[in-house]
């Protein structure tokens, strides 16, 4: 499930408004994740399965789509980290829970 957040204060290095999604391999990702990450498969229930790798520290690495160089999006802790997307600059990035709480509030 995705949620919208807006900046509570002012930080020019982060987008003013973002949409977030918490990684869950059993859940079909939102369209903006599918657009920017490599898809591995679409199962019979039309659920999209992303191309991902588990790291030795328990994290998840999503492979970015459409790049010549192998580039990944690292989610250090899938239980607490949020995948964020800025619809204006089309930027996909990860924020820890504490960072999200300090920078943003729910819209």
């Amino acid at each position, binding site marked *: 499930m995705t949620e919208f957040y807006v900046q509570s204060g002012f930080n020019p*290095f982060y987008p003013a408004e973002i949409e977030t999604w918490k990684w869950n391999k059993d859940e079909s990702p939102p369209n903006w994740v599918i657009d920017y990450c490599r898809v591995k498969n679409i199962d019979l229930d039309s659920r999209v399965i992303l191309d991902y790798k588990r790291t030795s520290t328990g994290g998840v690495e999503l492979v970015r789509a459409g790049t010549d160089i192998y580039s990944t999006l690292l989610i250090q802790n899938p239980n607490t980290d949020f995948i964020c997307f800025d619809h204006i600059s089309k930027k996909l990035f990860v924020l820890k829970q*504490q960072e999200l709480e300090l*920078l943003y509030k729910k819209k």
Partner: protein
Amino acid sequence: MIDKDSISLLRSRRTKSLSIIVMDVSYPLDEKIQKGFDKITRISDVFLLFNDNCWIGSESIDKMKFACLHDCLGWISVKDITSESLLKVLNYTTTISEASNFLFYSIIKCSGLSKLTDEMLSTLKSYHISNVINKPILNLVRLAPRELHRFYQLPTKPKSNKLVEVINRLKDKITNKSNKKSNIAIFDYTNAHCTHKTDSWFVVMKVHTINTILEFFKKDENKEYSKTFKEPDPLIFLSSVLVKLNIDIINSDISKVKINGNSFSIEK
């Protein structure tokens, strides 16, 4: 729109040291304070901690404008400058990437900046360069019995007029409102702990001390502790936390500490 009690960051980090300045003075700043302020901004990044009620009036200047003009890293304006606001700034400046990775922290009262001397600045620079002192420098003072009494004092119920009380009760009956309890929250003293304060206006410490303090407050059982400090001076909170966590300190003012290469001395 910027929320109240939220942090505004104006630029990214430039130096390895951060000075958090508690703005406890009125505007326009005294000339001596202004000079001290300028000296500090030259050697470290500055974060301003404002009170909502200060600088209101025709002579005042917008807080954002003031922070921009003085090339500060960021600022926050809070209802009351308490332990919570200081913790919020410390959390922000250790977590958010563009405003983090500081190695040295100074917490300064703006009113004291008039006493900033060149010797103190050179000591501060040596503290940043040298590894001789890794402990925080502040002058701890044990709280006097009267101050202890004030800290642990039970909140008193405000006196109310009996006639007003009866009218309010009648009003509630007419509007079918249930009897509301008193607004005074029962103060929980199990977490309260305050034994020391500091008479220093300039407290310096390294990042590992800040990390120890923040780690302590990440635990759920310790979160309530910071809320027990109602004093408007965040340095009281800081000194009490250092004592509670058994962190070794140099019990002196920075003006009395002299660092020469690989050794340091404390004036008496």
